[in-house]
């Protein structure tokens, strides 16, 4: 695992809307953005991102299915987040509080996605999940100026 002063979390758009699991795009954003330990996802500075790298569970299983590089769409986005801010949104400035803090990211966004699906009476589309996530990013003052991976 490579540790960085800043967190780089990706991907946002590795899936096509018509891929098998479009709904997981936004969920991965929500999860990967702040929960999976961004250090493990961060490419070392100055090196190219290996699009075939992806988060894995404790059992080594891949987190979700996604296309291989040759099938990936054109754009790769990532969000950079300072470690201090990353910790703050989980603990409200006091890392030890973790999920006890009422504004904890995981609690807010994951609960909202579940409740929205229940209320909608169906699975949310990829764009709807991203819309939910984008609103919370605004609430946390997390910038949404995603950077194209090609520009790096």
């Amino acid at each position: 695992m490579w540790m960085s002063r800043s967190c780089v979390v990706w991907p946002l758009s590795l899936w096509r809307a018509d891929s098998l699991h479009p709904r997981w795009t936004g969920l991965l954003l929500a999860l990967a953005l702040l929960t999976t330990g961004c250090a493990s996802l961060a490419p070392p500075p100055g090196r190219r991102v290996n699009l075939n790298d992806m988060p894995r569970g404790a059992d080594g299983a891949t987190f979700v299915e996604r296309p291989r590089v040759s099938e990936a769409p054109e754009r790769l986005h990532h969000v950079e987040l300072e470690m201090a801010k990353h910790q703050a949104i989980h603990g409200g400035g006091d890392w030890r509080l973790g999920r006890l803090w009422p504004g904890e990211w995981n609690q807010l966004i994951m609960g909202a996605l579940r409740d929205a699906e229940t209320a909608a009476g169906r699975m949310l589309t990829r764009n709807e999940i991203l819309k939910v996530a984008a609103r919370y990013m605004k609430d946390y003052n997390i910038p949404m100026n995603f950077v194209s991976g090609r520009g790096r």
Partner: protein
Amino acid sequence: MSEDRSWQGAWKVRLHERVRERGYASLTAFAEARPTASLVALAEELGKDDLNAVQVFSGLVAEAERSHQLTRLARGQLVRELFEGLPNGWPAVLDDTNRFEVAHALARWISYTPETHKERARQILVALLATPPPPGWRPLGPDDELLHALLPDEEV
């Protein structure tokens, strides 16, 4: 867009200083004077670059816990989410698009409802979908009659 500094320094102190500077005795009083403003709008008014919406919510919960006004806070937050999420009021017909907008607003409300009131909020979500309010319903404050009926004060 200038850089966000909302997590730098003692944000709780900063939050309450800004409220006092604007002539309010509490964050709750500041927010109640703007009953339909979103948490983001409240945060931007208090400190565009160094406070954020989640911090405002956290501060409101802390004050409501102390004053036993959590139910009123929950009603007030539903007002804010509906005002932002359903600008034309409650839709007359819940087609697929409308239903997502309603679901989104209500789900956000539940996420910004204190833990003690979350289950009650989920029951209200079900009730609102089963028996929709009048088309165009857009409560303007926590004292809205229908809101009171859905979530009456219970704290002493």
